[in-house]
């Protein structure tokens, strides 16, 4: 398994501002995934971040709203831009084990937008 650290663990933000979430993994991984978990909802994949290339976004998510950086094989950031109350959610970073597909998650970043 991998140890995944996320910062911040929680934050309260004002409408219209942006917040960057950091994800650090204790080993080198090819792909990192960013998920969103809205209250009472399941985990929804936002994008897949590969080192050295642009992130791949899922339907309904765009780079302008959720820019992602992947500067090396152990680190990624997700920015939630121009936030609205609808962005209040838990944002989770994850990595997978390629041979089995198992996903390992960080503790999540709980974001509240006022």
């Amino acid at each position, binding site marked *: *398994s991998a140890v*995944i650290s996320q910062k911040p663990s929680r934050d309260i933000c004002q409408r219209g501002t942006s917040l960057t979430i950091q994800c650090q993994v204790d080993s080198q991984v090819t*792909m990192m*995934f960013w998920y969103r978990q809205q209250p*009472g*909802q*399941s*985990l*929804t*994949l936002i994008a*897949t971040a590969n080192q050295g290339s642009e992130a791949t976004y899922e339907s309904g998510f765009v780079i302008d709203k959720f820019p992602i950086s992947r500067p090396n094989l152990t680190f990624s950031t997700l920015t939630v831009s121009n936030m609205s109350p609808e962005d209040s959610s838990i944002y*989770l970073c994850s990595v*997978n084990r*390629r041979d*089995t*597909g*198992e*996903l*390992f*998650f*960080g*503790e*999540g970043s*709980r974001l509240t937008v006022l």
Partner: protein
Amino acid sequence: QKEVEQDPGPLSVPEGAIVSLNCTYSNSAFQYFMWYRQYSRKGPELLMYTYSSGNKEDGRFTAQVDKSSKYISLFIRDSQPSDSATYLCAPGGNTDKLIFGTGTRLQVFP
């Protein structure tokens, strides 16, 4: 139709009960099936992983997959208050993506 359907609960049972958690899925391309447990204010943690139809047992937990009916189950024997959490099923296929159910919230009371 959603790709994965899961009753959100809450499911409330007394300590020691046998718990049955279930999911149905629609995509026959799914090849492996996972169950995650998520405690309040924590990230999901992998609980069980199965790759084929049939049963897989790990301690008090048994994962069951029926690919013919696209039905997956997680059984918890001798349930404990510490099992109180949300349980998410997550099938996956040839891609690196898992599709998560909405999760079933389980409460085990003493």
